[in-house]
């Protein structure tokens, strides 16, 4: 790009003043930073919707026999909660961060395919609106975020909710795949001089690997959604037991997408943690090569573990052992990462910013989620605890206590770069502690609810010993989380208006995005600093020093 000559007179041309219509600017933008912010704002909105749905669920379950929601409404709400959080919050939130940060971190001026980038965002937003439009059509989907056949088939879900669900996810899936392709092309082609693959920031590394995983996994979902739609609209029978179809086939297809999806939802968070922990420990990442390589190992293994969602199906012991083994194996590279993060902090000089607090909370919480994951991979334990509240606890430890805590660390870390202002650390600490305590209050006890025999996805439950108390505790915790989100929103609004100016590099960090202004200009860099190692800004500041 740099050897393209500038059109003569371009720099002196008298451009019209920026349009009055700031809305149009945002709608028409192809700038990766604006698109990234559009993703973040949109997902924050959907996060609030999904959160409200979670609170409705917890109110209904606060005590046995509650009639706050009808069973039909409860089932729509929990389906929408899961679908929203997976497809409209966690994945696009990470894509938004990747969108904003990847070009900056590799010293590029934009993504490789800016128009495709804008298309991805708008098709995602369209999918989100379509999904919620189902409420207006009279009935939201109510077959769960996993929509097991034949419950999701026309015979048992007669209303249009499931069709909206399938079409919405199809749109979102197309957008996600396009973004993944865009990220791969960008990372392969637009790295600044000297930024070899072994010097890439780990966030970019994980985004890179993650994008391949998306390209592998999402088409499986899209294909099965089309098959489901054909079943529902054209009376085919891919997933009904009549006429040669099979309900189990849906499970294979769905989870061959669905388990890589779990790692799609967590790998970028690993990347965030791998940036935040070194900077606030004032040390390079411990074992860069191992952290990067373990990501590849996780991605490859994640393709071969899907049937661990199906141990209760009765596939036979050989299947169960094979998928149990691969699922157990995935704990090893994940453990390698955790130990490397700990070793990075060891001997460091740690600043406990809000970002770092979330990163440390991530380590602790995610480890618990990972360990309960190991119990599922130990096949016979899965036979006992699957589809109980134990699973609800496990997956929230991974996706909320893991991914979302990681994202929170990232938001406090990069908000100054995006806005030019620091988030308030005082409000940040309040937010952190409320969310941390609320989270564990809500979900830890659900492990025991599951072990005490409470199935998941029930709109109410009998008054068995302890169940009422445990559910009420969980509900109280959920409201504490709700308050913590309000604190976050307040912090964002207040800091945007009157936060402390950030400067280019408030954390004294060392990756390229901190070498430009905050917020960066539209073209990102006036000059990209030279890159001789994985920490270009550290190298600039320590010309004779150690180069880790």
């Amino acid at each position, binding site marked *: 790009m740099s050897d393209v000559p500038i059109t003569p007179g371009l720099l002196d041309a008298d451009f019209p003043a920026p349009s009055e219509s700031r809305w149009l600017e945002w709608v028409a933008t192809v700038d990766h930073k604006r698109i990234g912010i559009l993703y973040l704002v949109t997902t924050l909105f959907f996060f609030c919707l999904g959160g409200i749905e979670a609170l409705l669920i917890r109110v209904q379950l606060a005590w046995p026999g509650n009639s706050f929601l009808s069973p039909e409404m409860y*089932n729509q709400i929990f389906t929408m909660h899961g679908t929203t959080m997976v497809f409209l919050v966690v994945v696009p939130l990470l894509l938004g961060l990747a969108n904003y940060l990847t070009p900056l971190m590799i010293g590029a001026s934009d993504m490789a395919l800016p128009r495709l980038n804008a298309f991805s965002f708008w098709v995602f937003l369209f999918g989100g609106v379509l999904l919620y439009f189902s409420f207006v059509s009279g009935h939201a989907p*109510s077959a*769960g975020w996993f929509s*097991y056949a*034949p*419950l999701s088939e026309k015979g*048992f879900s007669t209303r249009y909710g499931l069709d909206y669900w399938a079409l919405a996810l199809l749109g979102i899936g197309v957008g996600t795949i396009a973004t993944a392709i865009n990220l791969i092309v960008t990372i392969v082609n637009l790295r600044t001089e000297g930024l070899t693959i072994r010097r890439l920031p780990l966030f970019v590394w994980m985004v890179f690997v993650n994008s391949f995983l998306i390209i592998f996994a999402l088409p499986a979902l899209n294909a099965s959604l089309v098959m489901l739609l054909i079943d529902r609209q054209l009376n085919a029978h891919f997933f009904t*037991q009549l006429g040669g179809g*099979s309900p*189990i086939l849906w499970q294979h297809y769905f989870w061959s997408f669905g388990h890589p999806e779990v790692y799609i939802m967590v790998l970028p968070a690993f990347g965030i943690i791998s940036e935040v922990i070194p900077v606030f*420990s*004032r040390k390079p990442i*411990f*074992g860069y*090569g191992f952290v990067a390589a373990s990501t590849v190992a996780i991605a490859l293994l994640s393709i071969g573990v899907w049937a661990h969602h199906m141990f*209760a*199906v*009765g596939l036979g*012991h050989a299947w169960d*052992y094979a998928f149990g083994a691969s699922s*157990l194996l995935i*704990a*090893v590279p994940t*453990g*390698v990462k*955790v130990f*490397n993060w700990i070793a990075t*902090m*060891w*001997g*460091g*000089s*740690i600043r406990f910013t809000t970002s770092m607090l979330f990163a*440390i909370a991530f380590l602790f919480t995610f*480890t618990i989620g990972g*360990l309960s994951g*190991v*119990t599922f*991979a*130990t*096949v*016979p*334990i899965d*036979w*006992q605890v*699957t*589809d109980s509240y134990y699973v609800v606890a496990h997956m929230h430890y991974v996706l909320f206590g893991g991914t979302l805590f990681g994202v929170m660390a990232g938001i406090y870390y990069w908000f100054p770069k995006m806005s030019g202002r620091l988030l308030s650390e005082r409000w940040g600490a309040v937010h952190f502690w409320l969310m941390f305590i609320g989270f564990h209050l809500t979900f830890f006890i659900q492990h025991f609810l599951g*072990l*005490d*025999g409470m*199935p998941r*996805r*029930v*709109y*109410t439950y*009998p008054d*068995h*010993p302890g169940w009422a108390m445990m559910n009420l505790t969980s509900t109280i915790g959920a409201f504490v989380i709700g308050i913590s989100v309000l604190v976050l929103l307040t912090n964002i609004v207040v800091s945007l208006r009157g936060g402390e100016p950030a400067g280019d590099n408030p954390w004294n960090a060392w990756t390229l995005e901190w070498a430009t202004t905050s917020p960066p200009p539209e073209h990102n860099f006036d000059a990209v600093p030279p890159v001789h190692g994985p920490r270009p800004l550290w190298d600039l500041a320590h010309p004779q*020093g*150690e180069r880790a």
Partner: protein
Amino acid sequence: MHVSVFSPASPQATELLWLWNVCMWVCGFILAAVTLPILYIVVRYRRHGENEPPQIAGNKRLEIVWTIIPLALVGFLFVLSIRTARAVDHHVSREPDVVVTGHQWWWEVAYPAANAITANEIHLPVGRDMLIGIEAADVIHDFWVPRLGRKIDAIPGRRNFVWIRAEQPGDYEGACAEYCGAQHAWMRFRVVAQLPAAYDSWLTAQAAAAITPASGDAKLGQTRFGELTCANCHNIRGINKQKQYGPDLTHIASRKMLAAERLENTPGNLKNWLRQPNIIKPNCEMPDLKLSDGDLTVLTALLESLK
């Protein structure tokens, strides 16, 4: 009722709990290996002054250590999981003793050898290995009695199996554990473990046809049962013979609970259930027939006579 996996009542559930306990020790060890260093770091390495700490970028020996140890631990768990799986699932060597079929939202329970059929209440003799076949009539359900053993899915077009050997007489509650639609929450059931003699007499009684009521409200109820649409879905062996859609009512009065554990089976509850099934269990397949008080009385009398 107590339904915790921590109070197993069968060798199967005991094996599962044993594996759980071992796994907890392993996980507890790893959690300690992560948490204790973090706590130490938080206290010890808080920032003091502006000096940058020594820049250490890795250590290959350490990497090998924290790769090998977890690998050994998960290998250990894998071997144990095979051992437990084999102890829980024996070879399926014969026809099932009981066939349980999941319906939206109740369980059909058949004893093929005795030609007995009931609903939402599975009687088993204690001390005997019972093979239970699990099927589904509509969507996927899942059979789970936490104190007696593993979950197993009930899948339309397919028969799964589970072995259960109840050790002590008593009632063990179970539930559908696979989301199956509006009333998934009230698709519960119970296993009643009995001494073999009591079990045998129960089975004989269940296999018998209903005794036609001779007179009174129950006799009138029998007439109304046929005239109203009850008989289109429900079977009372000896009184009517229909293709079964709803639960078999031949010996409904002998059951402890109604509507898949939703209500205790008392005359009052039964009458109330007939009056407003859609209030008690919204979206259930049992229709509200707007029965008159007279019909309610005679139908309740009929059903109460079906011991």
